[in-house]
C-alpha cells in the first residue's frame, strides 16, 4: 500500500508529554487520547463482563440462586449498555485515535481539544449510568432497547440513565465528526482516498453512520423523557401515541449501530491479514465499496427486528430481502480475506490468529443472522436464546476479537516492545475455545424454545445452560491474560520492537520508530 519516502519528524515544540495527571486531563495529543480511550474501554469491558458473570451464575442452574429477577433484568440491561457504549465503541475510537492520524500521515486529529472533550465526557456518562444501580428502584431493567411502556416503570434512575445516554451520544458524535474532518482535511496531500488503508476507510464510513443515527437515538430517549415527565404521548397509546413507533425509531438507530461496532473490526482484519499473509489485500477497491454498501443497506433493514410486531406482508418481504442482501457485500469481504491468504506466505502470530478466528466465527454469526432474516422463521426464533447466540457471535468473536487483533497488532508500535507471543497464543486459544463453549450451546437453547431475558427456566434447558456458564466463566477469566500481557509489554515485554515490527507490515505507521514518537508527521510524508 503506502510507504513513506520521508518519515522524519520535526520536534520544534512540546516534544515531551506533560508530567503527572495534568498530562491525561488536558492532553490534546491523539496518542494520549487513544490510550485513555483504550484503558477506559478495557475497564468497562471488565465491569460489563462482571455483569455477564452474574447473569451466567444465575443461569448456571434452573431456579433462583443469587439475584432477584428485577436485579437480573438490570444486569442484562446494564451489561448491554456497558458493552455497546462503554467497551466496544470506545475501543474502536481508541484504535482510531492512535492509528488513523499515523496511517493517513496527519500530525494529529483535526480538532484536538474537541477530541479531549469527547473522551472526558465518557467517564462522567458511565459514572452516572453505574450510579443508577444504587438509586431507588434500581438501574434500568427494560433491556438495552428501552422499549416503552416497560421502560417508563424505571424508578429514580430513569432521567439519569437518559442523561448518561445523551452524554454518550454527544461523545460519539463529536468523535465521529473529528474522524471525518481529520481524514478529509489532514491526510498527507499525496494520499488520495483510494490510496488510504482500509482501517481509516472503514472508520470514515462508520463515522458517517454515527452522525446519522446517534441523534436518532438521542431523539428517541428524549421523547421517552418527555413522555415520562412532561405529559407528551409520543409512545403512549392512551394519549394518541404509539409504542411501536419507538421500536421503529430505536431500530433505525439500532441496526446501523450493529455496523458501527463491526465495520472498524473489518478494517482491523483487513490490515492484519495482508501483513501475516505477506500479500497485498485482495480486491482493495471492492473492500471499500463493500463497506459502503453494507453501511447503506444498514439503513433500510431495521424492521427485521420487529417482524413479530405485525406489519404488512409487503413490509415483511421488503425487510427480509433487504436484510438478505447484506450477505452479498459481506460475502465479498470474506471472499477477499480468504483470497488474500491464498498462496500467501502465512505465519500465525497472535494478531493473525485472532483475525482468522474473526473470519470464521463472525461468519457463523452472519449465517445465523440470515436464518433470523427469514420472516416466517423469525416468528420461531424471535426473543429466544438463538438471537442471543447470534448477536454474541457477531459482537464477541466478531467485534471484540477484531479489537483484540488490533491491540496485539499495534501494541509494539505503541509501547516499543514486543508482547509475550507464547502467552498471546494461550490467550487466543483459551478465548477461542471458551467463546464457543459459551455461545454455541445458546443456539440449541433458543431452537428448543428458551426465551431470552429470564432468570429461571424449565429443567429441559439445564445442561446447555451449565455448559454455557462454564464457558462464560472461563472466557471471562482468560481475558485477564490480556491485561497481564499488555502490562508486561509496557514494562518491556520480550524485547525491543523494530519500526516495522512485522515482516509483512506496510503503511505509514510502520515507517515511524517504535514506540511512535509523541508527535509524528508534522511534515507531511510522501506516499507512493
Amino acid at each position: 500500500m503506502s510507504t513513506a519516502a520521508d518519515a522524519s519528524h520535526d520536534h520544534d515544540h512540546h516534544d515531551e508529554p506533560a508530567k503527572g495527571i495534568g498530562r491525561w486531563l488536558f492532553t490534546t495529543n491523539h496518542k494520549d487520547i487513544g490510550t485513555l480511550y483504550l484503558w477506559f474501554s478495557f475497564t468497562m469491558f471488565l465491569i460489563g463482563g462482571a455483569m455477564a458473570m452474574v447473569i451466567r451464575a444465575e443461569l448456571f442452574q434452573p431456579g433462583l440462586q443469587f439475584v432477584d429477577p428485577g436485579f437480573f433484568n438490570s444486569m442484562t440491561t446494564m451489561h448491554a449498555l456497558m458493552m455497546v457504549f462503554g467497551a466496544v465503541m470506545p475501543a474502536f475510537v481508541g484504535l482510531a485515535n492512535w492509528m488513523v492520524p499515523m496511517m493517513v500521515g496527519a500530525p494529529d486529529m483535526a480538532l484536538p481539544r474537541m477530541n479531549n472533550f469527547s473522551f472526558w465526557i465518557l467517564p462522567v456518562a458511565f459514572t452516572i449510568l453505574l450510579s443508577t444501580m444504587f438509586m431507588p428502584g434500581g438501574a434500568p431493567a427494560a433491556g438495552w432497547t428501552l422499549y416503552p411502556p416497560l421502560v417508563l416503570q424505571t424508578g429514580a434512575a430513569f432521567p439519569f440513565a437518559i442523561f448518561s445516554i445523551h452524554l454518550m451520544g454527544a461523545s460519539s458524535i463529536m468523535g465521529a465528526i473529528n474522524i471525518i474532518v481529520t481524514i478529509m482535511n489532514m491526510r498527507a496531500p499525496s494520499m488520495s482516498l483510494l490510496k488510504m488503508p482500509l482501517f481509516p476507510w472503514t472508520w470514515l464510513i462508520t463515522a458517517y453512520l454515527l452522525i446519522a443515527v446517534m441523534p436518532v437515538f438521542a431523539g428517541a430517549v428524549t421523547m421517552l423523557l418527555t413522555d415520562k415527565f412532561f405529559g407528551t404521548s409520543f409512545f403512549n397509546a392512551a394519549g394518541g401515541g404509539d409504542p411501536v413507533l419507538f421500536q421503529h425509531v430505536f431500530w433505525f438507530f439500532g441496526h446501523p449501530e450493529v455496523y458501527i461496532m463491526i465495520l472498524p473490526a473489518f478494517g482491523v482484519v483487513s490490515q492484519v491479514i495482508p501483513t501475516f499473509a505477506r500479500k497485498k489485500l485482495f480486491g482493495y477497491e471492492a473492500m471499500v465499496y463493500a463497506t459502503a454498501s453494507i453501511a447503506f443497506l444498514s439503513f433500510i433493514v431495521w424492521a427485521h427486528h420487529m417482524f413479530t410486531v405485525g406489519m404488512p406482508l409487503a413490509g415483511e418481504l421488503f425487510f427480509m430481502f433487504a436484510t438478505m442482501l447484506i450477505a452479498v457485500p459481506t460475502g465479498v469481504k470474506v471472499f477477499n480475506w480468504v483470497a488474500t491468504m491464498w498462496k500467501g506466505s502465512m505465519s500465525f502470530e497472535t494478531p493473525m490468529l485472532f483475525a482468522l478466528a474473526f473470519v470464521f466465527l463472525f461468519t457463523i454469526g452472519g449465517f445465523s443472522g440470515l436464518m433470523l432474516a427469514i420472516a416466517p422463521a423469525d416468528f420461531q426464533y424471535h426473543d429466544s436464546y438463538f438471537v442471543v447466540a447470534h448477536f454474541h457471535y457477531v459482537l464477541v468473536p466478531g467485534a471484540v476479537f477484531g479489537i483484540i487483533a488490533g491491540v496485539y497488532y499495534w501494541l509494539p508500535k505503541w509501547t516499543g516492545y514486543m508482547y509475550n507471543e507464547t502467552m498471546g497464543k494461550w490467550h487466543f486459544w483459551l478465548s477461542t475455545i471458551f467463546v464457543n463453549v459459551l455461545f454455541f450451546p445458546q443456539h440449541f437453547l433458543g431452537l428448543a424454545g428458551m426465551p431470552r431475558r429470564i432468570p429461571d427456566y424449565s429443567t429441559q434447558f439445564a445442561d446447555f445452560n451449565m455448559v454455557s456458564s462454564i464457558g462464560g466463566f472461563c472466557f471471562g477469566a482468560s481475558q485477564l491474560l490480556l491485561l497481564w500481557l499488555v502490562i508486561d509489554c509496557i514494562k518491556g515485554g520480550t524485547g525491543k520492537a523494530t519500526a516495522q515490527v512485522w515482516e509483512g507490515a506496510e503503511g505509514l505507521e510502520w515507517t515511524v520508530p517504535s514506540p511512535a514518537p509523541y508527535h509524528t508527521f508534522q511534515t507531511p510524508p510522501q506516499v507512493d
Partner: protein
Amino acid sequence: MSAQGQQLTDSDAIAQRRRAATRQAIILGLVSLGFLLLFILRAGAAGG
C-alpha cells in the same frame, strides 16, 4: 527552502487545513442536530 522555512510552510498549511476542518465540523454538527429534530418532529406528527 531552508528547514525553518519548510516547517513554517507546513505549520501554516496545517493551520489552514484545521480551519477548513472546523467549518466542516460545524456543518456536520448541524446536520446531526437536524436529524434529531427531524425524528422528533416526525414522531410528533405521527400522533404524539
